[in-house]
């Protein structure tokens, strides 16, 4: 990839240039940096494990204070921020102050997460470089993620987090979750604990979430502080100053803490060594090596080589930290090996570590498509031209509130979509009340019923979309307009109902064979509520239906025919059917929605009836029988809808216009000068459009426009409102034949067809 586009990308406006330069460096020179980076990351892992041990003894705020103090001491010593460089203005001091506050908060979150879910998980979650997180966020929240590879990386990342959340049975933490109040040393940690407890998750899961949050904060913090570091004169100087300021910031707090609470630490002197290792490994060495490597190597390579050793060493230490072998490594030699099995390795952690490594690898790799350049075309020399402007200029996304407002306005404009929308709102409201109540009372039946309602709502949403889209203007691709979408949506809704009927049928058969015990006391209020909601829906939609029916009677020419057709439908079919076929007046979309509501109503009625039967007579067989009956009823009511939609989709001659068109074609036959016609096609395109095409052969002395107008008039009267006519004369066929010798056979065929049509005309349509 790179070689192929290399030249062009370089010629492009600097977009991909940054990533391409260092590629050519000999890898031998990079090797030592890579080794250095790996070693540093390994040491960082050691430092974090160490600091977890430290945090058991030392209060978190004190710990951070000491950390910052040590770091500030070293960095001030090395960088000499006051003696070198330009002077810092008051404005910049304020910014540095903000920087320090943000840094303190992030490290507080970080180390609190460390205490919650242990060093291994902390390392896995938090030690991602900025580039990984940024490309993850860009995949998740922008459309231009950078190809399937990045999407895969993002999916791996999410899977890894989910693995940590769900499949990591960190049992010991769950035991520790019942923390006594006295365990909390300060108001701060207590606050965080209560926040996590409020979320209703176990502590280590709360830690995972906290760390993800902290990771995002860290990346945002780094990005935001980039400009400040340039202003101040280098990232190192900024770091030194910021650490110094945060030491001053934390100082009063630590003093208050140490005065008010008694320390658990026996001798601070024995802790000097561990603190020194933590400060050196976690803060200073990591920072300096990172900054060196990012200068010498590309950022992406740096991220890739950095993430691998740290995750691997985290896994290793996770297994061996409490083992006697590592005792030499542990600077803080606890006297007793309390058989600490806390935060041990579990299957979920290993899997998620693998996924994290993979995702870090994928996400940090430079995107192959140069940058986001889009191919515009080719230059005169034949080299491809790319547009590096980015999508930011192209899709000027409107703000979300405005978008919602506009689409709401669109929805409310017309009665169909308005009705669906209101009913959808009602349904959703009911669903959420049900779900909420289900969660509150911990009733599984209610929750699953709520999910069922959501499932049903999807049909309503589709109907709403179809009703909206059907009003869009015709485009180049949708040359007839979008009206047909309503029919397609009606068809899909019909299929949906058939699927529902099928599942209900299967379940009821299974229950007939093996009737389960069920408790009925909770079902009745829910189904009554559902029944009320659905009855409201039926009232609204049937009102709409009668309205639409009246309108169609007024507008279409064949109203009486239409009506008689419906009456026929009424008398022919049974009771359950009548609703469906009565809906013929409205469009297929509304019919589909209506049937859906009807099916739901039937379901509620069935539940109520079967509940009554079970409670009164103890007939447990009533429940499957009822649902069997309902399934059949749903299926029967859907049949006409699907049949009609199929006919329209197959471009059938609209049945209600058959007679008129037949008469009209006979009339056309009698037009003066007309020899014959062929290929008469008439079909319903959407609810309002009936389209047609016809080829007409005329004698050569007739004026075409007159013929066209006559034919148009006749067919318009017959109800065809989108007509295309091709008028052919003798000369047309002559020209056709005169074109080239290869077409002779075709001419023969055409002639033949013409004569054939001529004699068969009378019988062609019926």
């Amino acid at each position, binding site marked *: 990839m790179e070689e192929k586009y290399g030249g062009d990308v370089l010629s492009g406006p600097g977009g991909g240039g940054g990533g391409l330069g260092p590629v050519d460096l000999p890898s031998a020179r990079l090797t030592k940096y890579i080794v250095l980076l790996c070693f540093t990351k390994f040491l960082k892992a050691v430092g974090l494990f160490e600091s977890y041990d430290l945090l058991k003894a030392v209060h978190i705020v004190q710990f951070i204070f000491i950390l910052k103090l040590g770091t500030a001491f070293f960095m001030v010593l090395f960088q000499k921020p006051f003696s070198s460089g330009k002077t810092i203005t008051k404005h910049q001091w304020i910014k540095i102050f903000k920087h320090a506050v943000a840094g303190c908060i992030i490290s507080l979150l970080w180390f609190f997460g460390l205490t919650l879910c242990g060093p291994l998980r902390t390392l896995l979650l938090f030690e991602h470089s900025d580039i990984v997180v940024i490309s993850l966020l860009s995949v998740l929240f922008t459309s231009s993620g950078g190809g399937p*590879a990045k*999407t895969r990386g993002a999916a791996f990342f999410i899977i890894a987090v989910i693995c940590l959340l769900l*499949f990591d049975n960190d049992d010991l933490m769950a035991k520790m979750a019942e923390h006594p109040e006295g365990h909390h040393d300060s108001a701060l940690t207590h606050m965080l604990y209560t926040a996590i407890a409020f979320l209703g998750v176990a502590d280590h899961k709360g830690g995972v979430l906290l760390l993800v949050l902290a990771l995002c904060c860290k990346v945002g913090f780094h990005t935001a502080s980039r400009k400040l570091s340039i202003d101040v004169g280098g990232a190192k100087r900024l770091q030194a100053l910021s650490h110094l300021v945060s030491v001053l910031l934390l100082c009063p707090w630590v003093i208050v803490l140490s005065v008010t609470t008694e320390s658990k630490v026996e001798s601070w002197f024995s802790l000097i060594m561990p603190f020194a290792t933590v400060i050196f490994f976690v803060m200073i060495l990591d920072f300096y090596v990172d900054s060196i490597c990012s200068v010498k190597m590309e950022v992406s390579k740096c991220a890739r080589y950095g993430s691998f050793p740290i995750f691997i060493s985290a896994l290793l230490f996770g297994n061996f930290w409490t083992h006697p072998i590592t005792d030499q490594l542990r600077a803080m030699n606890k006297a007793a090996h309390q058989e600490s099995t806390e935060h041990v390795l579990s*299957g979920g952690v290993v899997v998620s570590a693998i996924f994290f490594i993979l995702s870090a690898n994928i996400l940090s790799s430079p995107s192959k498509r140069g940058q986001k350049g889009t191919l515009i075309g080719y230059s005169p020399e034949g080299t491809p031209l790319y547009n590096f402007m980015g999508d930011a200029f192209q899709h000027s996304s409107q703000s979300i509130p405005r978008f919602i407002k506009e689409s709401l306005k669109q929805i409310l404009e017309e009665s169909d979509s308005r009705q669906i929308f209101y009913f959808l709102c009602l349904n959703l409201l009911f669903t959420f009340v049900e779900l909420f109540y289900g969660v509150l009372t911990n009733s*599984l039946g209610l*929750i*699953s019923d709520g*999910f*069922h309602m*959501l*499932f049903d709502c999807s049909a309503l949403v589709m109907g709403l979309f179809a009703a909206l889209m059907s009003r869009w203007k015709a485009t*180049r*691709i*949708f*040359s*007839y307009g979008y009206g*047909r*979408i309503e029919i*397609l949506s009606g068809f899909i809704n019909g*299929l*949906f109902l*058939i*699927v529902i009927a099928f*599942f209900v049928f299967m379940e009821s058969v299974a229950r007939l064979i093996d009737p389960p015990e069920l408790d009925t006391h909770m079902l009745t209020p829910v189904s009554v509520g559902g029944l009320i909601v659905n009855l409201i829906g039926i009232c609204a939609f049937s009102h709409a239906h009668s309205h639409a029916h009246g309108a169609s009677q007024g507008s279409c020419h064949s109203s009486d025919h239409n009506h008689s057709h419906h009456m026929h439908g009424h008398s022919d079919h049974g009771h359950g059917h009548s609703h469906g076929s009565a809906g013929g007046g409205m469009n297929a979309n509304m019919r589909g929605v209506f049937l859906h509501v009807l099916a739901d109503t039937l379901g509620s009625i069935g539940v109520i009836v079967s509940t009554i039967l079970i409670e009164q007579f103890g007939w447990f067989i009533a429940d499957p029988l009822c649902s069997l009956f309902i399934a059949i009823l749903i299926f029967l009511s859907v*049949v006409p809808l*699907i*049949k009609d939609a*199929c006919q329209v989709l*197959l*471009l059938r*001659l609209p049945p209600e216009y*058959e007679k008129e068109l037949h008469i009209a074609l006979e009339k056309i036959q009698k037009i003066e000068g007309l020899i014959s016609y062929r*290929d008469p*096609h*008439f*079909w319903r*395109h959407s609810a309002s459009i009936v389209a047609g*095409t016809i*080829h007409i052969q005329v004698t*050569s002395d007739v*004026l*075409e*426009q007159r013929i*066209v107008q006559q034919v*148009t008039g006749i067919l318009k009267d017959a109800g065809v409102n989108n*007509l*295309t*006519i*091709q*008028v052919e*004369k003798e*000369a*047309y066929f002559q*020209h*056709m034949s005169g*074109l080239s010798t290869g077409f002779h056979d*075709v001419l023969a*065929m*055409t002639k033949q*067809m013409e004569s054939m049509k001529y004699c068969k005309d009378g019988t062609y349509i019926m």
Partner: protein
Amino acid sequence: MGTIHLFRKPQRSFFGKLLREFRLVAADRRSWKILLFGVINLICTGFLLMWCSSTNSIALTAYTYLTIFDLFSLMTCLISYWVTMRKPSPVYSFGFERLEVLAVFASTVLAQLGALFILKESAERFLEQPEIHTGRLLVGTFVALSFNLFTMLSIRNKPFAYVSEAASTSWLQEHVADLSRSLCGIIPGLSSIFLPRMNPFVLIDLAGAFALCITYMLIEINNYFAVDTASAIAIALMTFGTMYPMSVYSGKVLLQTTPPHVIGQLDKLIREAGSVHVRIRRDANEQMVLAHVTNRLYTLVSTLTVQIFKDDWIRPALLSGPVAANVLNFSDHHIIPMPLLKGADDLNPVTSTPAKPSSPPPEFSFNTPGKNVNPVILLNTQTRPYGFGLNHGHTPYSNMLNQGLGVPGIGATQGLRTGFTNIPSRYGTNNRIGQPRP
């Protein structure tokens, strides 16, 4: 669930008619194989459903739905045989080729609805994870996988093969293509195996089986029952990903949209005609829509187009009543030399007319362009008009050359030829191949 062809004949005794049609199809030897596979499929699905309820695994259920989808695709194949035998009836004046499209659409949508159902079920299962028995899980997986692969590879399913190639790639295909590209970067020898576009159905079968194997492993090792739900969701999402592009493609055919390849050809044609023409063409198009076609323009256009896309000309004219007049002097080609005075302006209609027809003829079924009863004749009428127009246009164009405006004109003719003869010929071959031995 044979809704697709249940309602083919809505008359009273449609079971009788169905039986008759069925006999018609069954008379063909080729359909025997399909029927055999259908029977095996039914048996297989029955067993799988039994195992689903005995293992209580929703992932296996999701995978079983793919087998049911196979049944639909076999039905679609039968329908496509039936369609080739049927002649257009008076009410279905376009013939029944669209039934094939409808069948593909219905089966892909049904598969997606099944996946939606699985999603709903697994959302419920996340609240209360039931125990999964792994006894028949692996057996079921391999039975379903081998049967699916066997069906996919041994039956040549014309409609689905066409759709899966014509529709845009699913995300599953994209990821596999991306992976295999990087794999081929390491081992170049594999490129002949991995680089061609993968069959989406084979892909989803393999991926689903893989997910089920992982499920089995994890449940066996550590009793992670939640894996079952997770892999059910994964299979459902993959089903969505695979089916969605196909249902969009066939849905667009059903919605009578302009087929995308025609648009591509048109764009190419316009580009070949030169940018001047493109610009002018738009102006001319507007004029036509407004029905303000000047007399001269209209004579030129009518001579060039009436035979070709006459029917398309009429539509704009109809919109504005009085000007309907402009439609029709197609035989008066003796007027042609006249318009040359106007140079480039007069040329517009030449290029504009080919663009115009693009909107009206929608794709009728997968292999047929436009609304044609008799494909052969129609194809010719569509190609020929261009050639015809060119013949007539020659005089004007040569004159134009003398005036120094000829270059675009020639470009235009070239474009017309290459662009438009290509489409029908492709269709033509498709049809011809498709009918004798599908």
